């Protein structure tokens, strides 16, 4: 069974390019506006889109994504209508790989089996669950393994993962999400002191593309490690930009297409 993430990253690699991934919170500015933003990003050339399912206690997120989550919850966003959003964009012909970034309680409450089936049906391609470390993944992974159309569970690696890296990457699929700095999303671009060494170490072990995330604003931020990584993820900064431009579709498009272009300037 083909997965949109794996297909897309294969193409990116064939072209010898770097992938550009964005994060935005589902349901902002509202469901319709969010749908337009997803489509606009596909047109702008964003390779993969992370859609944050808002949760009341986003413990792995910094203030920007926290605020976006609370705002989205207050506007009625939940897992059910986020799944419907994906189903709708798929029906309308949008094929951009979509990864849900969400907290484990949201899945647990929905029911793990139900959740996996609903993702497969809607067309969700990947999952990032920041509070579900490798040791706690078995229950979810077993359910994912039952269905060929299941999304891929993306593995996160941190600068202090060290001896855990081979275990984390052994069966990893899609891409490896390398947290560039310690702590939470959206910090200034003061990357961890040994970040280059760390990325090199991950890259050595990884059989799949290595993406760097946390605290990236401009293509220049990743210049020093560009040769090592296969792409990067922009989250908090992208949310700030959307907020500044009142979720204007053209502003999003402009940012994404110029970021991706500059990332791949040789």
């Amino acid at each position, binding site marked *: 069974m083909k997965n949109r993430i794996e297909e897309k990253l294969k193409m990116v690699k064939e072209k010898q390019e770097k992938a550009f991934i964005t994060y935005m919170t589902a349901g902002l500015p509202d469901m319709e506006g969010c749908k337009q933003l997803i489509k606009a990003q596909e047109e702008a050339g964003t390779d993969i889109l992370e859609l944050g399912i808002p*949760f*009341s*206690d*986003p*413990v*792995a997120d*910094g*203030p920007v994504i*926290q605020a976006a989550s*609370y705002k989205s*919850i207050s506007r009625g966003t*939940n*897992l*059910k209508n986020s799944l419907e959003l994906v189903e709708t964009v798929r029906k309308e012909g949008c094929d951009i790989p979509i990864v849900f970034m969400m*907290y*484990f*309680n*949201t899945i*647990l*409450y*929905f029911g793990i089996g139900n959740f996996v089936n609903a993702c497969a049906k809607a067309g969700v391609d990947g999952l990032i669950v*920041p*509070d*579900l*470390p*490798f*040791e*706690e993944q078995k229950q979810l992974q077993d359910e994912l393994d039952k269905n060929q159309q299941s999304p891929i569970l993306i593995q*996160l*690696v*941190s*600068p*202090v*993962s*060290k001896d*855990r890296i081979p275990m*984390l990457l052994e069966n990893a699929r899609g891409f490896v999400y390398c*947290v560039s700095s*310690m*702590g*939470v999303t959206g910090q200034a671009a003061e990357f961890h002191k040994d970040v280059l060494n760390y990325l090199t170490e991950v890259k050595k072990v990884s059989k799949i593309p290595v993406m760097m995330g946390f605290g990236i604003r401009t293509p220049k931020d990743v210049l020093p490690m560009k040769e090592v990584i296969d792409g990067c993820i922009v989250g908090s900064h992208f949310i700030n930009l959307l907020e500044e431009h009142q979720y204007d579709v053209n502003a999003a498009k402009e940012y994404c297409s110029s970021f991706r272009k500059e990332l791949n300037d040789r």
Partner: protein
Amino acid sequence: MSSAYYGQFGGQYVSESLMNTLKELETAFEEAIQDQSFIEEYHYYLKEYVGRETPLYLAKRLTEKYGPKIYLKREDLNHTGAHKINNVIGQILLAKRMGKTKVIAETGAGQHGVATATGAALFGMECTVYMGSEDIERQHLNVMRMEMLGAKVVSVQSGSNTLKDATNEAIRTWAKKAEDTFYVIGSAVGPHPYPKMVKEFQKIISVEAKRQFLEMEGRLPEVVMACVGGGSNSIGMFADFLEEKEVELIGVEAAGLGIETGKHASAMALGRPGTLHGMKSYLLQDDDGNVQLAHSISAGLDYPGVGPEHAYLKETGRVQYVSITDEEAMDALSELCRMEGIIPAIESAHALAYAFKKAKTMKKEEAILLCLSGRGDKDAHTIEAYFSGKGYLN
């Protein structure tokens, strides 16, 4: 089953960046509690600094009124006014042993914050306490105490601006600073090994109480009870009685305005298993799986979750969990003040209120052993506002 679990509850639901930190902590903790010199140092400070052992007091007038003997384990007489300090001493000694120079803590009512600030001052460590902006308003006295003790109090403005959000913020900070910073968790919650560690450092309550009761009565009590928020005084109070199958164990949660109103803090009564703050346990949630706000007049019980071992003890039936409303707790508080000359914390008054109910079903020769987890000085304003609002004063 992994040792990180109590049945289906517990675990380590934290980000990858904390997994090595937790492993390091677990190793250090397991080594420390096998090390006689560590245990001796812990007991030294409990005796000389905290003032243990605490008395086991037979509440004579209450006993006369209600029938069975009512014994109070006086944790309110500890330095800083509650059982919280027992655990703080243990965790800070461990932090020191691990070479950490800074401690952080979350606090709701401020008792754990004050205890951590106290421990940090005692051992010369830098201390930062995370507290919801709403709680800072409500518990001004404790904010002042923490600052007097040299701690920095950080106001958390996120989510509901209360304990659960302060805990989130402490976890975020920890994930960034674990290299030199030790996170002192105050309740029997959090990722493994925290629930185990908090139990280990609070079990002194039941070890003492059991011995004291045996000396006085020559047998074990029929009933042992304690209030349950996250569950630290209760797990300490139950620990040494868990294997004594003939002893009935009761945990008392806060029913707030009444379970049926939805404004309560009884995770066991109406919660579903969920994950929050690094653990899987019973949790108050809304229809989307978001965490619901708890309500209780007692800030220390105002928590939407409960420690994972309690969830397990409920599931296995070893402990019975019940709940007491704000009103019942305040009536019991008032009664203890007037009949025994003891002003209890509102938290502890919940256990007391249930003891009075339970007493009616017991025989005169039987006994209830109750953990009076803290003193009520910190609650003076809340108590005044409550009783004046009800017209009890003047």
